[in-house]
């Protein structure tokens, strides 16, 4: 087992390094002169050169790359063009909002999905199944932001139950993470985006749980459990559900990584100040150090969660974690 972990961690470091390098390359090919946005036409050539030097853009590419990697290791993402403050501070301020949104939605989506999925497997062939499966498929087929638009139009604009965007009521300030988590206003703003994301995410666990449960339910050891006279309930819960949870747990970890990147659209629809929104605005305004920082953070969380998913599966499945025959 330890060998498996070491191998996966080594692999993780390699992937992180390659992703960081790819990001570096991608952003260096960005169109438009990075300094264009905040240079007024009156700036002469000499001042423009000074600025480039300030951001280290005049050095040869590979030298920039080494500086970039060096800074990356120390968590320094460089200076934002527009907001003239360290990118890292902007990111650390925005990341918690994304994490809270993602975690709340994932927990709700997977809780709902697992329970309903198990129930549908238990009640195979029922009317509920004929209704629930197309619904689950439909939520997976719908664009996230469109779901957001519908909820926004109905609950915010039409009924006015929820704010129409942002994370804080006008005039309020977000403050530190603990301030946000303790402020009702923050949670009130979180409702709609979280509901949208939950609606979007619950399809996968529901279908996956049902499919795995059905697969497990006609395994031979379930037939044996029935032969032992165990009640249908204890068979489903103790035997089928436990085995069916393995792939769902992996999907949860993968889902966490993927949706942190995927929230870009939800955060845009609801103007939710998460890291996705930071990326969008940064790319739209060619503030590429900020965009690059946001991208790397999202990518790193994704890669780390992919590895966590892999290790979680190995840890949970005794066939992998407890080694071969004695």
């Amino acid at each position, binding site marked *: 087992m330890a060998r498996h972990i070491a191998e996966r961690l080594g692999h993780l470091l390699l992937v992180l390094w390659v992703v960081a390098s790819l990001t570096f390359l991608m952003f260096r090919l960005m169109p438009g002169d990075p300094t264009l946005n905040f240079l007024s036409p009156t700036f002469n050539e000499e001042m423009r050169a000074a600025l480039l030097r300030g951001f280290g853009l005049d050095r040869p590419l590979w030298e920039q790359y080494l500086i970039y990697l060096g800074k990356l290791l120390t968590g320094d993402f460089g200076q934002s063009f527009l907001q003239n403050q360290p990118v890292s501070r902007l990111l650390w301020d925005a990341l918690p909002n994304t994490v809270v949104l993602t975690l709340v939605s994932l927990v709700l989506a997977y809780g709902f999905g697992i329970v309903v999925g198990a129930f549908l497997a238990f009640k195979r062939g029922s009317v509920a199944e004929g209704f629930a499966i197309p619904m689950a498929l439909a939520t997976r087929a719908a664009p996230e932001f469109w779901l957001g638009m519908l909820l926004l139009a109905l609950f915010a604009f039409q009924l006015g139950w929820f704010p129409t965007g942002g994370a804080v009521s006008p005039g309020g300030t977000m403050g530190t993470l603990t301030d946000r988590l303790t402020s009702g206003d923050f949670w009130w703003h979180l409702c709609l985006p979280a509901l949208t994301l939950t609606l979007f995410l619950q399809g996968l666990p529901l279908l996956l749980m049902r499919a795995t449960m059905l697969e497990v339910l006609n*395994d*031979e*050891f379930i*037939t*044996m*459990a*029935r*032969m*032992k*006279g*165990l009640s249908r309930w*204890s068979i489903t819960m*103790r*035997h089928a559900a*436990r*085995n069916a949870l*393995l792939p769902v747990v992996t999907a949860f970890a993968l889902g966490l990584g993927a949706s942190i990147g995927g929230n870009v659209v939800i955060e845009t629809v609801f103007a939710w100040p998460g890291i996705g929104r930071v990326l969008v605005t940064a790319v739209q305004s060619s503030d590429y150090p900020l965009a690059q920082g946001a991208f790397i953070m999202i990518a790193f969380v994704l890669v780390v969660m992919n590895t966590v998913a892999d290790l979680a599966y190995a840890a949970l*499945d*005794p*066939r992998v974690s*407890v*080694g*071969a*025959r*004695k």
Partner: protein
Amino acid sequence: MSLLSVRGLGVHYASRAGKVRAVDGADLEVPAGSILGLVGESGCGKSTFGRALMGVLPDAARIATGEIVFEGRNLLALSARGRRALRWRRMSFVPQTAMNALDPVQRLRAQMLEVLQERGGLGRAPALARAETLFRQVGLDPSRLADYPHQFSGGMRQRASIALALALDPALVIADEPVTALDVIVQRQVLDVMRDLQARLGIAMILITHDMAVVAYACDRVAVMYAGRIVEAGTAAEVLERPQHPYTMGLTHAFPDVHGGTSALVPIDGAPPILIDPHPGCRFAPRCPFAVARCHAETPVLASEGDHTVACFRAGEAPALRAAAAEPATWARS
């Protein structure tokens, strides 16, 4: 009064091609305290028969006809709840490959305790003690209770399944091809465990298998099944050495004997019957070298002569048929 008597049992599968009569009017008597070998080729319905006794059939199958009288009660007349109460307490099951018959993510101890506590009503400590004794009885070191199924070899998994089956002192254990997947030495060891425990505990066992040699080695009585029906039954000596049904005769000659000569093995031509719209009259008639007109029209009924029952119109001429059956020419028709 035998421990178990099955009369006219019919189990039908709903399949796209029509109703498959996997078991179609099977009769069987199982006396207490003996090992009965239920032998037949694949597709003859012997596994379905075993699972029907337990009352746990695949979704597409259901018991259509007949009665199963066990310890004086007709199980088919019981409510689902009543039937479930008997499971594992009075009648238990040993599967073929224990690898996927044990929950892969639970230790053996948990799976033993589950049966002993939830079905046996024992407290944790007595259940654990009982589990350890059972493991010792089947030749497994009790420390192995802490392991997972994938850490057991094939032979050890079968022993664990037997321990599980004996947990609540059942009156009858049904073993479906328990040793088929095992190597010959391990197979012998597991068979010996079953014979020894059966003798010491006086329980009845039904050993379902396709292997005549295993039946000869381990069973007191034998029942031969073909196309969903029991065609012959009796003591092992009677059925194996003085078979009265042509199919049994064919089987004994199709089986190579490790110490026997190299006399030509005799195949039974033709393919096993499709059980959707079975052949009228005797199901074996199309492949039987001794079939007469009556065999194709009427269905023979199990008639017993002393302790030996057979379903064949020409059973009376058995000695002559047996002699002819030994000649390969008799069978080489196509």
